[in-house]
């Protein structure tokens, strides 16, 4: 059984400040799947994540991206988010003076409102948040702290995953969420992501390393190199990469 297609990228070219970084990416993600996108530094992994989320700093030159059958490029970043596309940022941004509770509730309510659902009051929201906090292993003190302000790199990553848990997206893109985490934090984060998997949702893990994939089993592994996917395979490919390094794929890749 194959799930419905959530994301379909064809021949995507994109760049920043006139430099082309993605040079023809093709990728199809269906409901229920976990995809890992691996590759060396500078291969375009983060660019792909940012482009899918709609960061205005990046320009798409050619190609297409369909999300839930809609032209993703035509949707504003906030519309993508409201349609269930979530990006866990590699470098989450701090917002001084705004508490996590307020930020998360505003985000959740913006999404709910766009779907014609009732907005949650502070009390209802706290109830809903309780169990998600437990999942990530945090207590209530988190709620009154400012968004990503004064947090360590690892805590910021955890915060992204908590937001993921609360917003329950259809397509979650995790941009190097595993980097900067110690082993215990990595386990918690990975298990949380794994627990949050649903048959109607999909996860795209952008990562350098094999180790997160020992906790979240990917259905597909893609190797991004030089702005395109040069090799795709099952979870075994990740293991092979771990052993042989990226040079192996680069050497094998067909010359354009």
């Amino acid at each position: 059984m194959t799930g419905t297609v959530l994301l379909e990228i064809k021949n995507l070219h994109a760049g920043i400040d006139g430099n082309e970084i993605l040079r023809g990416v093709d990728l199809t993600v269906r409901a229920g799947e976990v995809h890992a996108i691996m590759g060396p530094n500078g291969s375009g992994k983060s660019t792909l994540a940012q482009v899918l989320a709609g960061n205005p700093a990046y320009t798409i030159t050619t190609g297409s991206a369909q999300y839930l059958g809609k032209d993703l490029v035509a949707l504003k970043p906030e519309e993508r988010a409201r349609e269930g596309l979530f990006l866990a940022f590699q470098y989450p941004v701090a917002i001084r003076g705004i508490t996590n509770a307020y930020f998360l509730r505003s985000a959740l309510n913006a999404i709910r409102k766009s779907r014609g659902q009732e907005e949650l009051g502070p009390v209802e929201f706290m109830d809903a948040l309780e169990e998600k906090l437990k999942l990530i292993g945090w207590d209530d003190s988190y709620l009154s702290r400012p968004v990503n302000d004064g947090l360590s790199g690892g805590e910021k990553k955890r915060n992204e995953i908590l937001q993921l848990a609360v917003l329950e997206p259809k397509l979650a893109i995790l941009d190097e969420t595993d980097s900067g985490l110690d082993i215990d934090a990595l386990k918690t984060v990975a298990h949380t992501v794994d627990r949050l998997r649903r048959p109607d949702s999909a996860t795209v893990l952008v990562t350098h390393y094999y180790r997160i994939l020992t906790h979240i089993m990917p259905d597909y592994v893609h190797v991004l190199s030089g702005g395109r996917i040069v090799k795709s395979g099952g979870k075994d490919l990740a293991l092979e990469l771990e052993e042989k390094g990226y040079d192996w794929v680069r050497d094998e890749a067909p010359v354009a």
Partner: protein
Amino acid sequence: MTTGIEAQVLQPYKYGFVTDIEADVVPPGLNEGVIRLISAKKGEPEWMLEWRLRAYRNWLKMPEPHWANVRYGPIDYQAISYYAAPKAKPKLDSLAQVDPKLVETFAKLGIPIEEQKRLAGVAVDAVFDSVSVATTFRETLARQGIIFCAISEAIREHPELVRTYLGSVVPYNDNFFAALNSAVFTDGSFAYIPKGVRCPLELSTYFRINTSSTGQFERTLIVAEEASSVSYLEGCSAPIRDEHQLHAAVVELVALDNAAIKYSTIQNWYPGDEAGRGGIYNFVTKRGKCLGKNSKISWTQVETGSAITWKYPGCILQGDNSIGEFYSVAVTNNRQQADTGTKMIHLGKNTRSTIVSKGISAGHGQNTYRGLVKILKGAEGARNYSQCDSMLIGDQCGAHTFPYIDVRNSTATMEHEASTSKIGEDQIFYCKQRGLAAEDAISMIVNGFCKEVFKELPMEFAVEAQRLLGISLEGSVG
């Protein structure tokens, strides 16, 4: 950046309506005759007229100051009408007799003045052009000996108090605009809190300019006797007009031993349009005197309106151990210019002052913080902490900081922190990625930036301030 943050059209100013009411307007122009006329209309005693005339004669000799970091065309003081009042003269002792049009005007501004709809916990003095039209909760306050009324009424009813304190903090010849105000001031509020009384209600004055070609020159005087305390809030708005209107107010606060005055302002005068047409020129002198030992005066201001803002609410810390505070958020969007800050003058021993200033510039707005901390010889052990943060939205606006420090006692402790940041594309994108609209994202980031100031506002008004900030910056992102 492909889609930068840039100023667009300002959202319509929501308080820009005009009340169609017959007004008694004195023809434009300023001379001793006009001052005598104003004084006569107010039924003032002779000493008050003399004081006004002294101020006027001084003003004639004073040059208009131009040291502030703001640009505007010449003001023609002879083209302004110095008195405008709704014709049906309200009787202040009966709210039922207030013109329904005025009641409706204030209701539209969110300031209900009828008995049954009054704001719980807030006593309001409503000033329309040159006169106070209603003061609520007077009886409740009077039971505790608190006087809260229009200053014109106080001059008639409590001359001994007014004579003692009027001009004691801001003398009639203090500066050009204060002298002008002293000569022509029309109305404003007077509050007197007797010894040992904690004022049970928030006192509030709402100033509304309605008539065109008039200036508003209000005067407020608050006196807190020994061991008393009061929290006071002022709000203001004006119709949308193509012309600039002048608002030159004076506020004086006096705190005696162990007294505390908290003065909050939400300033929302019409700011002008995106091309800089119209808007209020807001030239204001506000000063508090901590006369008694252990007294405290705290200024909190949220300045979102006016084409030009020129104001430096300050504290004279005369009593030993007295405390002065200044918390400010100033927003300039489109062509607005603000030159604002504070003066903390330390005279007494162990006096302390705190300054937290947040300037936000968007569009072509220019925002200047100007502050003076002066520690005089006798101010043994004085302390000051200053923090000035500026935020820029877009690349056409400006933020400027001029902190002046003058220390004459070596035991003083001074701390000054300053920062300037540009609102980040990355912050906005982060918020959008979580489903928030651009405007909500900006509003959230800016509110977070201002949090240290907003938490100083009385609860009811903190919400209003946040909302106002959102409106002021609407349309400031692309």
